């Protein structure tokens, strides 16, 4: 979309930029002032001068990038910088994730980062914010993506775990170590058996617990007895699949938790026994519902299935366009290859 002179946010080679406030949002190259929507690697990068993030995300951000010049802003509170009023509002994506609302000269823009509209016990739910321009993701922005109720997925996971435990087999769920892993943990029924967390997951769990999120107790693989290893549920990052680390569980069943598991091809490529369709991104109805709730006449799409969403919105009479960004791009590849944080940074 061609930029207009009064635009509050524009796409620059180094990242999204607010000219009026002279700061960036989730930039991919080092800048002086960076506003961060959430702590996933494609949105939170090293090397910026100052970081501004939602206060709720302080622990996870620090866990990811270490000690940086970081200011936390509680959800809903306003801070004015160069005349631009900034506030953070829950995006429901992961702990500390925020939509960033900018107000200047009578205009309101909201940059949503990544978000989902469904429930998640590990973070505050998505909060619709009225605005003039809404900047949205479109990771699953096609009508084939439609999530089942979260509880159905948790029920499936628990039933699968129960069957495996009865057969004397461990159950390994591969889940991205920040966000998805904790969401999976929050849905487990600890009455079924012991829960083991991989080091990379446990490190993030610590940040969650420090932030006041209740998660069921977990053990490290070294703390679990041989008997427990045969009936436990294990949460591990995707990179653990096929590694020597999984060998200690002997005959186990494995599963992958991701929105991509909706696709048969992705499921089969992943080569696990089960695919649990659990995503931290909005599905197609979720994206449309979120956009409608903002009341914004103008929508800009950043990543995922960008072109279809832009065209669909245009056909619905909205002014729609795209920003070229380095977010997400291919989550399937990302889930496989993105480096997992070390157990102790």
């Amino acid at each position, binding site marked *: 979309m061609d930029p207009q002179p009064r635009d509050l946010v524009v796409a620059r080679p180094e990242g999204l930029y607010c000219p009026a406030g002279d700061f960036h949002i989730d930039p991919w190259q080092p800048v002086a002032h960076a506003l961060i929507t959430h702590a996933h690697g494609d949105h939170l990068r090293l090397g910026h001068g100052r970081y501004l993030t939602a206060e709720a995300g302080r622990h996870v951000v620090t866990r990811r990038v270490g000690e940086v010049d970081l200011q936390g802003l509680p959800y809903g509170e306003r801070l004015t910088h160069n005349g631009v009023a900034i506030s953070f509002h829950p995006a429901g994506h992961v702990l500390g994730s925020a939509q960033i609302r900018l107000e200047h000269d009578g205009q309101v823009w909201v940059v949503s980062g990544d978000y989902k509209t469904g429930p998640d016990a590990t973070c505050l739910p998505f909060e619709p914010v009225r605005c003039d321009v809404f900047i949205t993701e479109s990771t699953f922005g096609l009508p*084939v993506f439609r999530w089942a109720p979260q509880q159905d997925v948790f029920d499936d996971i628990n039933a699968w775990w129960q069957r495996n435990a009865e057969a004397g087999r461990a159950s390994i769920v591969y889940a991205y170590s920040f966000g998805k892993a904790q969401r999976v943990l929050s849905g487990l029924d600890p009455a079924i058996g012991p829960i083991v967390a991989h080091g990379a997951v446990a490190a993030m769990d610590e940040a969650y617990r420090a932030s006041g999120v209740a998660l069921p107790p977990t053990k490290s693989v070294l703390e679990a007895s041989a008997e427990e290893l045969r009936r436990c549920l294990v949460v591990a990052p995707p990179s653990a699949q096929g590694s020597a680390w999984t060998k200690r569980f002997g005959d186990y069943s494995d599963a992958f938790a991701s929105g991509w598991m909706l696709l*048969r091809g*992705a499921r*089969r490529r992943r080569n696990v026994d089960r695919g649990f369709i659990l995503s931290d991104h909005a599905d197609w109805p979720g994206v449309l519902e979120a956009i409608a709730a903002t009341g914004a006449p103008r929508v800009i799409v950043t990543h995922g299935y960008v072109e279809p969403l832009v065209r669909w919105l245009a056909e619905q009479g909205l002014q729609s366009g795209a920003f070229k960004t380095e977010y997400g791009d291919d989550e399937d590849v990302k889930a496989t290859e993105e480096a997992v944080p070390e157990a102790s940074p």
Partner: protein
Amino acid sequence: MKEFAALFLALDSTTSTKKKTDALLAYFQRAQPADAAWALYFLAGGKPRQTVPTGLMRAAARELAGIPEWLFDESYDVVGDLAETIAHVLPPAAATIELPLHVWIEERLLALRGQSPEAVSVALKGYWNELDTPGRFLLTKLIGGSFRVGVARSLVLRALAEATGIDAKLLAQRLMGYTDKHHAPDAARYTLLVDPSEQSAQGASGQPYPFFLAHPLQAPVESLGERADWQVEWKWDGIRAQFIRRGTGSWLWSRGEDLLNGRFPELDAMHALLPDHTVLDGEIVVWREGRVQPFADLQKRIGRKTVTKKILAELPVAFLAYDLLEAGGEDVRAWPQRRRRERLEQIVAGAASPLQISPLVEAPDWPALAVLREESRSRGVEGFMLKQREGRYGAGRTKDVGTWWKWKIDPYSIDAVLVYAQSGHGRRANLYTDYTFAVWDGEADSRRLVPFAKAYSGLTDEEMRQVDQRIRQTTTEKFGPVRSVTPTLVVELGFEGIQASPRHKSGIAVRFPRMLRLRWDKPVEEADTLRTLQALRQAG
């Protein structure tokens, strides 16, 4: 139908043989014969003809989902499978119902055939609205005639044998021809198939035997031991078939278990050339001027519904017999290969065209055979078949009672440039895995890349992912599901045959192209030329 949809999902989502067998066993233990009859039919590779044209199915799905055509197509490109796209794009069903598989097939699916497009559309939407996602996926696959399930027949047989207590080999035999299009499965056929008291393998009189399949020879040929222990024949490039003459009838079955009667009228004459109760295994080829003709010629015959006199004169076929399975009503598969061959020679001796014997290759030792094998291309064959002289005739890809090896010639290979890519289907959906390759044509400055082959097999999952990334990085244009890329990647392609083809822009067509190696190291400028390909064709 829920159970069969669940079975399909279970088979589809695991690569473990044990889990597949367990799922099959659990299904057959519970299923009613009328449902099991259809389940077995599908699992054994049976396919009812497509009952609804794809376009009509897509239109109905779009209407029910309330989305425009372009958005449906975008979704299809990402999902990579039409039935799966439809299953996910429709709004969730208000209430689902459960009907037995055979009712779905016989009373609903097959009943769609021949109805008006409007009626079909209404019926389809109604059906989809009664099913959950797995059910919709299965039904749409069945309606679209694209149902395929990743399970080996031997596995299905093993599970069925365990469920019914009948020997798997006997079941294999009874199952031959079960998926033939002309006979719909039903409870009676299934019950007969699994009847423990029915000891005769030959249900219908035209029942074929399971084909014995060869394994590719990868070890050095010397590892097979003495040359004298092996019967050597040319490996024909035709249609593997069984000719059955019993009583007044004759039957011609393909390896895919299609009844070919009537497709090759010249082979009807074989009935009179053979003694009663004879079953031959052999190859159908186009035979002219005393030699086998390229497979492309046979393809021209396969494609035709009616066989004209002109075609019969231009492209006559022959049956090259190479094994004897039944003689005088006796099942002789347990005889050693050499004895079956001896008797086969007696039976076929002196028979006239179209029946011929596949001759033995006489060469004293392995080195001599290796030299002779180099002539394969000029003789129009694919190499050698090596058959254990003391071996029996097995069933399928077995090695326990005797072994057949195919010792094929090395493929042609050429370095080509990737120019277009399209996303794959099934497990390759959402990845660019189907590629078009080009070679250079013309001189120096005016050189350009001419597409000549498509290939999608030969890469590992990891390599596919790497190529997929390269494609995304180098895309210049998208038209529908196809991406055009800046030429940057050279791939070594292997193929079996090469033919002049006026239909192709490059003027040539290659057979069975596949990727042998990614040449990340090789600059595009150094890829092969059209001239190299033409030279290969003339040499072959």
